[in-house]
């Protein structure tokens, strides 16, 4: 049984960067997010765990502005936050989607330069951001090769760097390690920890419990569009009535063993 780490002292008392209150979104008749609410503290890695169809991705799409919530409210650093409507609000957020959002026929440098331009960067700041992104992805030496020649892990690292290019205070990561080899996964973990050390706040979704346990300061377990439990891994184990249990056992206890196909 894995020992559950305590919450990091540095973030346990930090003020909230993003507050989500009673968030609701439906695709037609199907309610995907039904009153989700939680707060993400500055500088923490916040995990959002749930089975398929639990509402994780829809929540992230509302937070990055791809979807406009039907109800509920968002606040960023204490101010109303409407990324779906306000372009300036989207500057506060970087998205690392589950799909590899890259152009295969462009080089890593060209990809980063293009996404940097979209974020309003030009000239020296753009060049600096591209260099920083290449370093974060560990791709400085292969920066001028086309992305289609990269391995899956290299693409994943570049995908992360593209999301952080404009140096947003909050990064939303939707299963960023899906399908990568252990070396690239380890590099991604180190990158994420480096980002946290640099003061970034991260919202992280994953199906890998050991990843969440290793990286996340706090975790929310969601299912059926609702938050079932929230806290550190140890607190979740307590809430589930399984003190000292690992996160996977807690997750299965809270969400059940029924197969989810959507």
């Amino acid at each position: 049984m894995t020992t559950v780490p305590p919450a990091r002292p540095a973030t346990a008392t930090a003020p909230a960067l993003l507050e989500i209150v009673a968030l609701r979104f439906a695709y037609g008749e199907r309610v995907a997010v039904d009153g989700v609410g939680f707060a993400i503290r500055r500088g923490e890695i916040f995990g959002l765990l749930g089975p398929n169809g639990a509402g994780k991705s829809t929540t992230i799409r509302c937070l990055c502005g791809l979807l406009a919530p039907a109800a509920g409210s968002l606040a960023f650093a204490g101010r109303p936050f409407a990324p779906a409507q306000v372009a300036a609000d989207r500057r506060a957020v970087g998205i690392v989607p589950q799909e590899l959002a890259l152009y295969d026929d462009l080089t890593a440098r060209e990809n980063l330069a293009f996404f940097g331009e979209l974020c309003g960067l030009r000239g020296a700041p753009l060049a600096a951001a591209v260099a920083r992104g290449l370093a974060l992805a560990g791709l400085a030496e292969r920066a001028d090769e086309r992305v289609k020649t990269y391995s899956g892990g290299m693409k994943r690292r570049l995908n992360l760097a593209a999301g952080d290019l404009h140096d947003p205070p909050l990064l939303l990561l939707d299963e960023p390690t899906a399908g990568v080899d252990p070396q690239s996964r380890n590099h991604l973990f180190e990158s994420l920890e480096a980002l946290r050390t640099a003061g970034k706040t991260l919202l992280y979704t994953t199906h890998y419990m050991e990843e969440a346990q290793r990286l996340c300061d706090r975790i929310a377990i969601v299912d059926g569009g609702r938050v079932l439990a929230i806290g550190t891994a140890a607190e979740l184990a307590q809430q589930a009535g399984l003190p000292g249990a690992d996160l996977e056992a807690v997750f299965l206890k809270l969400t059940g063993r029924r197969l989810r196909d959507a």
Partner: protein
Amino acid sequence: MSTLATACSIARKDLRLFFRDRTGVALGFLLPLVLVGVFGFVMKLASGGDGGMSRTSLWVVDQDMSEASRRFISELRKASTLNLKPAESAAAVDEAWVRREIADGELHHALLVPAGFAAALERRELPELTMLRDPDRELDDQLVSVGLMQAAITALGPDFAEAMTTRMLERAGLPPERSRQLTHMLSHTVSGIGVMMLMFGLVAAGTQLIREREEGVLPRLLTAPADRAAILWGKYLFALLVGALQLTLLFSFGTFVFGVDVLRDPLAFLAVSGCVLLAVTAFGMLVAAAARTIKQAEGLSTLLILVMSAVGGAWFPLQLFDPPDAVKVVMACTLTDWAIRSYQAIFWAGKGLGDAELVRNLAVLLGFAVAATAAARELFLRRYVRSA
């Protein structure tokens, strides 16, 4: 970041991606040239023979009202290649009326049988017949010529027939500024196939948007802190630039190979090309915004482009057959018809921006561009942004 700067970034990126696909570029630019070449040479060969054409309309004005003129007109009515007008039972028309109608483009050939026709025949002189014609209808000359010959041989005897017909058609000859190696069919083919291939090319450019959604890049574009409509404008700009390059290549080919004098009136050519590009790009964007998948876009665009090309006369100038009014209305509903009419107005008819009909054609093309762009923008926002 301004909308224009975002659109320029997107267009630059799309151009870079476009030119990286060398096979795609080769096909995209060479295929239209090959098609224009094939169609052009086929038309060139076809217009060299009689082509087995059907009847064409010839209006006749009898100013002599003699037994001889009536007999001649009666023989013309029997000619296998002519549809003589007015009908026997209809009221006669006068010279002023046919001149006005030809000038307005409503009629294309009219024969004046002058007073003194019978007297000339009695003196064994060649009658001074006058042919009025629309120079835009060169193929009909051959049909009219055959019909005149048939009637003249029967009514006047073989001595007069050939000399009369030859002289009349010489006098109704081509405008002096037009290249003699250029035919109506050739310039029509260059315009028609060019417009059709431009449509295919620009729909392909528009599908880049759907590809980005299918490949998962679009969410990153939509979550950037920029005006989301700029994504569509960026695609628009990219398609315009690719289209401009494609038109330049096509008309350069048409000029050097078939003698189409595209720069006879550079201002008119630029104005027509600009309006055609805007309209065709808007059509491509509309198809791309309306379709949910690349396969849908390709299927829908292929159907629409082929139908518009066939009905709008991109493959063959349907107006040569005097289509019924209902067909003319359907033709006028196609983008290809207006585009080809506009190009033909400058390449063949020698018109410029001072011509009211050409200005009307350009206004129709611009109107289509504005309407299709507005519809594409609304569909894009509804499909990609509001329901992202």
